[in-house]
């Protein structure tokens, strides 16, 4: 087949062609109106002028002669949106999903497509992937339409794209630009019912970042209601397939309902939970009936071992505080009788039990989060150097150790020379200093990791006096941070980080006077914070890993870590790294860079949608500083299923910007396919330019010269 193609149309060309055509008509008309010319001359001159005008037009319009042949092997991409919203069951009255409707339509037209072109099948989710068949359903979390541009690499030489979608995309940049740059027409086929679908959808879930195993936690869930009559539905919180809590939500005409669900985390560590709404009868979109959230769950309760050498008010009050704290599991031993006590009673009259052996203590030690010694002369009860070594290892491996009572810091302290001495916040080799017996506690001038009050020092002056033996430690150990000091005198309490663990020393055994003296809240706050610090609770972690606001699969996100020392001061010179394990098992790693103020940043790209576990570790001068773990829900911000109403306007825009066409699935007929593929049915084998050649110029010159000679010979002006 031979065809003609005109040059690129421009405004100047068009005007020139119009003027030229006008001039030619005028010249021929002039000959036609002239009198005294023979008809033969009139005809010859008209032909010559018409030919010259045609030759000039040829030069202006730059036509080309095309030699074409019919073909049926042009590569054409058939791309089906396989994201969450395509699972919506609103494609037809029988309630099949959009995905299933597309699959049926594509399978029906596949023979025609195969005759007219060479179709290549793709699935589009958060990335484009080649597919042999349309199976597996709409399993992708989201779709990124701009990824359609990857067709250029996935199928080089593709001549057109058929794109089946509901137009609902989960994220990514505006697809129109990248698709227009593709240079091939994109024929879009819209699927789904643009009218509102009946849907209950979880819009957001709010929960505290951390909680405790077996201790009630709460999640506040925001539910959006679309085209549903008044009713109620059950809202639950699941973890690993186990329902941890539930409640009913009810609505009448509201568009949004917010409800708080109580649940008990069953496992410790970074955990992913799921808020789940039971399906509403006839609900078209079930994908937004669930939403994941993560929490850092502490051990079920912090296990505290409290050994007291002599019962006194300090033990009575602190034991009561720990015993009534639902987050604490207390195991305690108090020495009720000293070996030198004179007893005139038989053993059966006494409720006394033997003090645990050193072996029993050592065996149970790893199960505790913190150990408290109060006025405990451990050597008298069979706890010797191996016990001290074990306690040291316990602390270095992450345990907390609180040592109370001024005997521990006296010149005759049993801890002098023991394995624990280097971990004590007070230096035992320095002479203690004398001080008052009654004194008011006050905070030190520097920063502290925790305090009895949130701010200010006015409240301290309201606290009852504390009492003691009038002896204070001579000095703090290097690296120790004072927590309390006796008013105008020596240190009263101090803390020290040791390996992964923490140690606190307290000289006075009379903080119970705060509670009995009307400042019970202060007493509870002080000891709650002290225990939280000792057991390394989230708020006192040296390293806190902050998840990015949103982490979309394949997109770079920024991890933030805050690194603090024991006093809560920013650490500017730490070295940090992280490792990640993605939902699909993939692994990755990276390093942090300092951003100042104890803040560290690292870029991370999660490839797979779903929960990814991240561990960050920091060191300082080669020594371990701390670590933190989080679970990141990649792709959770791209909740495409939140609103699954089809967006055909976007699909129309895409087709328009690429010289393609749009239709709904009902319009995806044989005729529509043939029409769309018509431009691809012929292949140009040869193109012969006609205007842009010296021959055309020569013809024009010869014709103009011939007309001029003819007129001169005939004596015409």
């Amino acid at each position, binding site marked *: 087949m031979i065809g003609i193609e005109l040059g690129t149309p421009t405004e100047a060309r068009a005007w020139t062609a119009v003027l030229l055509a006008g001039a030619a008509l005028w010249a021929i008309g002039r000959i036609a109106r002239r009198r005294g010319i023979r008809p033969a001359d009139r005809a010859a001159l008209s032909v010559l002028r018409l030919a010259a005008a045609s030759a000039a037009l040829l030069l202006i319009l730059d036509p080309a002669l095309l030699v074409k042949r019919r073909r049926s092997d042009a590569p054409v991409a058939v791309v089906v949106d396989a994201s969450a919203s395509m699972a919506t069951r609103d494609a037809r009255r029988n309630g099949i999903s959009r995905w299933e409707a597309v699959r049926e339509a594509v399978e029906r037209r596949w023979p025609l497509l195969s005759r007219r072109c060479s179709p290549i099948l793709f699935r589009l989710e958060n990335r484009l992937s080649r597919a042999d068949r349309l199976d597996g359903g709409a399993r992708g979390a989201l779709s990124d339409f701009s990824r359609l541009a990857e067709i250029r690499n996935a199928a080089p030489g593709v001549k057109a794209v058929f794109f089946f979608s509901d137009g609902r995309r989960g994220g990514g940049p505006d697809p129109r630009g990248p698709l227009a740059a593709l240079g091939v027409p994109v024929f879009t086929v819209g699927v789904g019912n643009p009218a509102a679908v009946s849907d209950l959808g979880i819009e957001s879930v709010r929960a505290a970042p951390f909680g405790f195993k077996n201790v009630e936690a709460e999640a506040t869930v925001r539910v959006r209601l679309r085209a549903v009559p008044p009713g109620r539905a059950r809202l639950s919180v699941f973890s690993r397939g186990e329902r941890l809590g539930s409640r009913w939500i009810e609505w009448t005409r509201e568009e949004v309902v917010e409800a708080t669900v109580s649940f008990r985390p069953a496992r410790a560590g970074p955990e992913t939970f799921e808020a789940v709404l039971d399906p509403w009868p006839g609900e078209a979109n079930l994908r937004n009936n669930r939403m994941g959230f993560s929490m850092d769950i502490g051990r079920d309760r912090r296990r505290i071992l409290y050994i007291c*050498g*002599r*019962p*006194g*008010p*300090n*033990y*009575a*009050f602190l*034991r*009561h505080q720990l*015993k*009534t704290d639902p987050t604490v599991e207390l*195991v*305690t*031993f*108090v*020495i*009720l*009788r*000293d070996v030198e*006590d*004179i*007893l005139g*009673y038989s*053993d*059966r*009259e*006494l*409720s*006394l*039990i*033997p003090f645990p052996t050193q072996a029993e203590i050592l065996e149970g030690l790893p199960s505790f989060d913190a150990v408290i010694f109060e*006025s405990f002369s451990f050597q008298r009860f069979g706890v010797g150097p191996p016990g001290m070594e074990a306690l040291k290892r316990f602390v270095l491996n992450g345990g907390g150790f609180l040592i109370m009572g001024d005997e521990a810091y006296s010149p005759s302290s049993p801890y002098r020379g023991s394995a624990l001495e280097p971990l004590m916040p007070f230096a035992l080799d320095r002479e203690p200093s004398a001080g008052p*017996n*009654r004194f008011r506690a006050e905070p030190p001038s520097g920063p502290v990791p925790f305090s009895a009050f949130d701010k200010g020092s006015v409240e301290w002056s309201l606290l*009852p006096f504390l*009492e*003691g*033996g*009038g002896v204070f430690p001579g000095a703090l150990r290097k690296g120790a941070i004072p927590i309390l000091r006796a008013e105008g005198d020596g240190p009263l309490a101090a803390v020290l980080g040791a390996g992964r663990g923490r140690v606190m020393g307290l000289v*006075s*055994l*009379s903080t*119970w*006077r705060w*509670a*009995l*003296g*009307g400042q*019970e809240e202060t007493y509870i706050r002080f000891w709650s914070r002290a225990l939280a610090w000792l057991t390394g609770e989230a708020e006192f972690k040296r390293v806190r890993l902050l998840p990015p606001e949103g982490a979309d699969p394949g997109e770079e996100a920024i991890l933030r870590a805050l690194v603090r020392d024991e006093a809560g001061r920013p650490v500017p010179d730490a070295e940090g790294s992280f490792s990640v394990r993605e939902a699909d098992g993939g692994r990755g790693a990276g390093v942090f860079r300092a951003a100042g103020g104890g803040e560290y940043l690292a870029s991370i790209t999660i490839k797979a949608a779903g929960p990814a576990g991240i561990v960050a570790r920091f060191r300082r001068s080669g020594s371990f500083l701390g670590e933190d773990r989080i679970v990141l829900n990649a792709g959770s911000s791209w909740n495409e299923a939140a609103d699954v109403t089809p967006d055909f306007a976007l699909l129309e825009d895409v087709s328009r910007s690429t010289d393609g066409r749009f239709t709904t699935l009902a319009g995806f007929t044989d005729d529509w396919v043939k029409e769309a593929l018509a431009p691809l049915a012929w292949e140009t084998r040869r193109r012969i330019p006609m205007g842009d050649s010296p021959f055309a110029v020569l013809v024009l010159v010869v014709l103009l010269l011939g007309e001029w000679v003819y007129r001169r010979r005939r004596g015409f002006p």
Partner: protein
Amino acid sequence: MSAGEVPGNRFVCSVLRHEGTWDPYGDLWPEIAENLRRTTSIDPWPDRRVLGLSDPALFESPFLVLTGRGAVAFSPDDADRLRAYLSAGGFLLVDNSEADPAGPFARSVSSLPARLFPDGEWKKIPADNAVFRSFFLLAEAAGRRKSGQGLKGLWVGGRLAAVYSPDDLEGPWVRSPAGGFLFPCEPGGEPQRLEARKLLVNIVLFSLTGTYKTDAVHQEYLKRKLDLP
């Protein structure tokens, strides 16, 4: 005790002074303290502390004894302070020196819990309570008398904050100038005296250790000693 020394964490017995006969037996504390020192690891402060409910030292005294003969009257302010004291962790031992369940002391203290707390009442302390196991294993309560009423308790916020003995717990400690015990213990005689003295030790230990003896770690031992299944 050296000059300027303070109790700190040591056990101090505080006795409440009131308008009635608040100190019917005089100062028994030295003997009780000595007994505590010799039999337990408690380090008792050698002197008792006598105070009124309006005394600021009340809130430095975690163990308070209300005893005496005759009716005990509390003003609204007194009741407020006693309520605050018990709510903040203080412990009150009420000992009826009359040992008469129908006497004026018993009548006046019977309404005390209701005056302090809306749903306050004296409730019988069961035999498996830590009070009966805090040091000695005791089967029942007795004092100079043994009325069979047992011990009664007032729980505040889940804590046993006050114990009422209707049988005169201090009486068995009182000695004559010659050194012998002044009052006989009825009806059990000397064995009852011994049990009564043990009970006072237990109450002191209980005030310092709370429910310690009900912790799981003790249960196996106690079951064996009590021949329980």
